[in-house]
């Protein structure tokens, strides 16, 4: 990949050329980003107005504050990128802002649900509006984004922290075991009085750093020292260590934290990165076999996972009479109803009844709310936005000039993609439901903050990838020849 596309082709051979190097680099695309960002702010504003008009017949009172708030967040992000990551990918920030903005609108819309308010009252809770908190978390997310863009001068610095990352990731992953589980999954760290965080969201990024650093060092050994067997390169026994360790770890998560989603996410990310590092298809085959084996065994033994699988296979069994003992929630059925009732064009903002999903309508199941209110058209648009973010991440990996950057960008993009697949697939009944959230859309502080950090790292890698190489110092010899004129 040429860093200096504007270099004239004759420059190398022609000693008489007077202008050899253009000082104009590739376009920074910052203005493109700004235009897209304006769109990404205005669109949720219209959605917000739409909800207000549908629910109360008037423009929502918080309209101005909401529009300004989102605009400010996007604007700050943009200015920081313009200053500190000039050549960054122009799509990532607007896409993330759009999803974050739309997520806020849906969370606010579900805050207005009288049905959820009455449900909370009936169960003895006080119903809390989630949108203000989510706006706060979004601000924190942008703050982390800004901090990463400013202070992470070069993503390669992260390589130094490979083993520290491993330790931190392990702590984050194991910690929830010691805290009480919520809603059938132990994926939270609860701090009394302060709330709870989902460490898995942060572990995703930190693990990607560890994997990238580790694989960059070990990739030759993993790729070359192997035996060929039936068309596959079989790794040596001792090289199997790392993949076995990660596999075991993901099974531990599955068993002790009963979190199918995180387990799938981490293992999937590792296999993807291993494949990219070694270019050996055999790793994919191994990975698939191991995850299939592990999932089959755990799925048939661990009761909580078994329940999820049964509920996936028979979503409407909860309405059977008599009801099977494992059919404890009608959430999946309600999510499917929400999708079906939305049809192709949806009911329109504020006019669906996805709050029938009751608990978690604005977090794990928020995608069903979009499916109902925006229809097939809107839901596909959202999936495509996610697809775009993932592919921009992979594009960044292609453009990156260092193997660490390539691995890290691929890992983060793939993790993001796998997460979207696992959550949306779960909500749509494509795979068993897991306890993860749609990045940026779903209510939840950990998720939104961590994903802003993920976007920030991708932006830094893409900036480094597209930044023109500094102009070489002028050769004193060339100067000399220029002086002597005929």
């Amino acid at each position, binding site marked *: 990949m040429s860093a200096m596309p504007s270099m004239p082709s004759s420059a190398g051979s022609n000693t008489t050329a007077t202008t050899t190097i253009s000082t104009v680099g590739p376009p920074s695309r910052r203005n493109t980003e700004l235009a897209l960002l304006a769109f990404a702010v205005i669109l949720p504003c219209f959605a917000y107005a739409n909800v207000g008009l549908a629910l109360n017949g008037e423009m929502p009172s918080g309209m101005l504050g909401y529009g300004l708030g989102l605009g400010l967040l996007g604007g700050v992000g943009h200015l920081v990128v313009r200053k500190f990551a000039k050549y960054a990918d122009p799509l990532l920030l607007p896409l993330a802002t759009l999803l974050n903005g739309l997520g806020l609108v849906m969370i606010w819309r579900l805050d207005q649900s009288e049905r959820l308010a009455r449900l909370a009252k009936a169960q003895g809770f006080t119903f809390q509006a989630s949108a203000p908190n989510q706006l706060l978390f979004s601000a924190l997310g942008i703050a982390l984004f800004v901090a990463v863009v400013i202070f992470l001068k070069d993503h390669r610095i992260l390589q130094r922290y490979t083993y520290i990352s491993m330790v931190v990731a392990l702590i984050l992953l194991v910690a929830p075991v010691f805290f009480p589980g919520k809603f059938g999954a132990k994926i939270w760290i609860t701090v009394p009085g302060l709330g709870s965080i989902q460490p898995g969201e942060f572990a995703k990024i930190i693990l990607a750093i560890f994997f990238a650093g580790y694989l960059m060092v070990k990739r030759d050994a993993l790729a070359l020292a192997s035996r060929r067997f039936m068309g596959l390169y079989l790794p040596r026994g001792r090289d199997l260590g790392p993949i076995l360790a990660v596999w075991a770890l993901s099974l531990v998560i599955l068993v002790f934290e009963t979190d199918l989603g995180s387990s799938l996410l981490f293992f999937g990310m590792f296999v*993807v990165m291993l494949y990219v590092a070694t270019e050996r298809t055999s790793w994919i085959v191994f990975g698939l076999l191991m995850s299939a084996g592990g999932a089959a065994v755990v799925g048939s033994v661990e009761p909580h996972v078994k329940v999820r699988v049964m509920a996936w296979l028979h979503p409407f069994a909860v309405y059977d009479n008599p009801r099977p003992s494992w059919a404890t929630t009608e959430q999946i059925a309600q999510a499917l*109803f929400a999708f*079906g*009732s939305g049809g*192709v064009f949806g009911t329109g903002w504020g006019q669906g009844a996805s709050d029938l999903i009751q608990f978690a309508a604005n977090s794990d199941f928020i995608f069903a709310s979009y499916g109902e209110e925006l229809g097939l058209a809107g839901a596909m648009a959202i*999936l495509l936005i996610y697809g775009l973010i*993932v592919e921009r991440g*992979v*594009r960044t990996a292609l453009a990156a000039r260092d193997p660490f950057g390539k691995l890290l960008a691929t890992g983060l993009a793939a993790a993001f993609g796998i997460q*979207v697949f696992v959550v949306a697939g779960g909500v749509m009944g494509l795979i068993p439901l897991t306890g993860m959230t749609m990045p940026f859309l779903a209510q939840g502080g950990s998720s939104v903050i961590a994903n802003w950090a993920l976007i920030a790292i991708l932006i830094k890698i893409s900036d480094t990838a597209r930044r023109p190489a500094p102009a070489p110092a002028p050769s004193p010899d060339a100067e000399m020849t220029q002086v002597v004129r005929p």
Partner: protein
Amino acid sequence: MNKPVRRIAIFCGLLVLALLLRDNWLQFVQADELKTHKNNRRVDIARYSQPRGNIIVDGQAITGSVETGGVDFKYKRTYTDGPMWAPVTGRSSQVYGATQLENLYDRVLIGDDDRLFFNRTVDMITGKGKKGGDVITTLNGKAQKAAFEGLGDKKGAVAAIDPRTGKILALASTPSYDPSKIAGANDGKEWTSLDKDKNKPMLNRALRETYPPGSTFKVVTAAAALENGLYKDVDSKTDSPLPWTLPDTVTPLKNEGDIPCKDASLRVALQWSCNTVFGKVSADLGNKKMMDEAQKFGFNNDKLDTPVRAAQSIYPKDNRPQNAMDGIGQASNRATPLQMAMVAAAVANDGKLMEPYMVDKVRAPNLNVIETHQPKEMSQPMSRDNARKIQSMMETVVNEGTGKNGRISGVTVGGKTGTAQHGVANSENPYAWFISYAKGSNGSPVAVAVVIEGSDTMRDDIAGGALAAPIAKKVMEAVLSTAK
């Protein structure tokens, strides 16, 4: 490293593609199925989001809708004189579903019927909410009231038909229930008590319960005798020994009391309700011929839709002694009150049985009629001459026989009483029956069947005349007064 990265890009693209395909499957292919799934609460939410269309009797709505103030269901169903009309309307409950007309005409009542499409489109353009259409019934308010009040606190049912058209004029069942009380979202207690009530107040006895028809079935037996040419003259002697033993048995068939049944003519036999005469007629004709005739009256029809489907009245294949007992309505044949009203109606309409129906018109919210029911002939169980003969016999029953309580001064009334024994060794309280018709200047405007369960005071054949006939009389009077 770029080759595997590109492959990962394809892999991620496939993940998104899988999601897109699944989304299309859910929201396009399966959308309708999920949208109308019976457990999808949105169906009920939409159903009760606007006032429901009404069910109408004599130009007056007997149903209504009130705002609930609830979240899910904005309106709920109310009923005027609910217990009286429950056998007609059925219920529309937010929790326990809809039955009868409320169920069958649900799409009209909520405004979703395809024939209301134009209406809906106009409303959508002009910004008006969806409205439901109305269901206009054939019922007669006065007759219904007479029937319901006549039954009072007794357990029983009344069905009245206009023999000329088949219009159902009254359909009462007691004890009844008020569907208003179980219409809402929080009426579980009332529902449970109704559901557990051993008197089954939610059972529509007029349409859905079958009883042994007792002596009222002798009208069918008489029609079979005349139609099959067993006897031609209703006033000449029949070949009826007394005592008479049931075929293939040593059991003599008894009459109620000391009545003149030996070789009695059909007229006299019907007048005094002679078991021996009609039992022998049935035995002489045989099971096949009896069953054929009963089927022409509507027995053994499992698809009698009014449009609410009536329970199947039965005249079964039987052995000879049972078939003889069937001839006097005391074996395994069973009939709904509607079926026995149809028997009286066929006789009154000179042998032509009209198909019973209770929905006359369906009306769009803009008052355009989108469906009108045309009276249909169902069958001809007997010739006009034979029908006239049976009419004169049934009129004798009312004027000089067991049905004197059905007499209306100045009006020709024909009828037949019945008291059906039931239970092991006839131990339980018998059912008192009365079927009748009244004649006006322009054919017969009303035929009625009344059945009363558990009349413990009387066990002989007079019970039907004493308990059921006065109710039939009031219903007939009500219809005659409105027919003027």
